[in-house]
């Protein structure tokens, strides 16, 4: 199996399996077209930790720590665990914040954008188009010399931080500590809304671990897929996205979960402009940071602390998006959604223009 995953067939084999697992998770209880959504799940985790108080989106989604731990164990097993860091970490943190702003205006990360299309939610086509445009803008910066600088190898222990955080989240999930002032918290779990909808925790964790392994070995990346296709004409990773979407569509159809249209789609709104612009922001931020949110989690598991700080940025960005009324809901974009999208775009363009270190 490892030979397949690391071969030229790896991304589409992994992508197909991940698409299948995603639909299975929705079937087992995750919200519609949300078998996997790194943005939504990170937002739910931020809520569960009390970083925001949007009561309907609070749950310690085990898929996220599963991705990190699956990748960590896989990278240890296959001798690819390589702690590294130091490539503009604070800027990467801010890019993580911006990526999350955009994703929560659209209501989904790139993985979920494709899953929404595979479930018949045509609003997501605007998101996918935005993702492509964001990637193209990022490519323009890359061709003109953009770089966040080189990372350096770190001591072995430096890569343990994110796996330890992942273990801590799982401990909170299963122990459910409640010693807050009002008899609730510090961990919060939604009793209604999307946060209350989830597959059984052990199934979600198992799925996360398997996907962490599949993605670590195959380098599955939904933003790298577009970037490599546009920049190099290299469809290696893009085949993974195609397989992911096609298999998810087939599985949705087989299970009766496919419902085509614009109106009444699960955890989605119909505002074309902001579906598009939200993902332009996300696509640009992910391209500047070197990979989609799933890939950032996988790299964090491999010991990349720059990816780890990007993930922490996404967590903080999720909390900010809800606390500042910038996250969308099924009713439409939040009161500040347009503002944070524009601010995020201005910031990312500034980063793209200003980070051009001369390399000898």
């Amino acid at each position, binding site marked *: 199996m490892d030979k397949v995953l*690391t071969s*030229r067939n790896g991304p589409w084999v992994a992508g197909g399996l991940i698409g299948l697992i995603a639909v299975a998770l929705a079937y087992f209880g995750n919200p519609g077209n949300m078998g996997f959504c790194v943005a939504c799940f990170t937002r739910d985790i931020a809520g569960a930790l009390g970083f925001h108080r949007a009561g309907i989106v609070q749950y310690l989604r085990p898929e996220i720590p599963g991705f990190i731990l699956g990748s960590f164990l896989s990278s240890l097993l296959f001798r*690819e665990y*390589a702690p*590294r860091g*130091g*490539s503009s970490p604070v800027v990467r943190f801010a890019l993580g914040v911006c990526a999350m702003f955009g994703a929560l205006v659209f209501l989904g990360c790139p993985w979920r954008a494709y899953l929404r299309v595979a479930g018949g939610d045509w609003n997501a086509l605007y998101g996918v188009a935005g993702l492509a445009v964001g990637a193209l803008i990022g490519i323009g910066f*890359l*061709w003109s010399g953009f*770089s*966040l*600088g*080189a*990372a*350096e*190898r770190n001591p072995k222990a430096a890569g343990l931080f994110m796996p330890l955080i992942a273990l801590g989240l799982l401990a909170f999930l299963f122990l459910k500590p409640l010693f807050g002032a009002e008899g609730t918290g510090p961990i919060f779990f939604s009793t209604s809304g999307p946060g209350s909808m989830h597959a059984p925790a052990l199934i979600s964790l198992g799925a996360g671990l398997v996907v962490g392994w599949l993605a670590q070995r195959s*380098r599955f*990346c939904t933003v*790298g897929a577009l*970037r*490599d296709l546009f*920049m*190099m004409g*290299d469809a*290696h990773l893009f085949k993974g996205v195609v397989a992911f979407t096609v298999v998810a569509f087939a599985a949705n159809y087989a299970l009766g979960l496919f419902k085509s249209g614009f109106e009444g789609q699960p955890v989605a709104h119909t505002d074309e402009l902001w579906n598009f612009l939200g993902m332009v922001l996300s696509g640009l931020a992910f391209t500047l*940071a*070197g*990979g989609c949110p799933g890939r950032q989690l996988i790299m964090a598991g*491999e010991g990349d602390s*720059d990816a780890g700080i990007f993930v922490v940025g996404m967590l903080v960005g999720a909390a900010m998006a809800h606390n500042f009324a910038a996250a969308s809901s099924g009713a439409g974009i939040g009161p500040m959604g347009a503002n944070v999208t524009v601010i995020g775009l201005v910031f990312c363009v500034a980063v793209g223009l200003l980070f051009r270190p001369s*390399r000898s």
Partner: protein
Amino acid sequence: MSDTITVNAAGLSCPQPVMETKKALSGLTSGRVEVLVDTATSRNNVSRFGENKGWRVTTEEREGGWKVILEK
């Protein structure tokens, strides 16, 4: 025999190692290019790019990563 061109792409995020390799190979019809990388992902990406462009690719482990050698 032409001189070896060395590209130091260690520590760079995707897709910069491949971009640096592409720049080094542009205009070259033969020769030897050595690309220094620090992750298995970059090693694989640079190798795949070189093979796709018709170069003979070998890799050597070195301290802190790999040296990807492209020859034609």
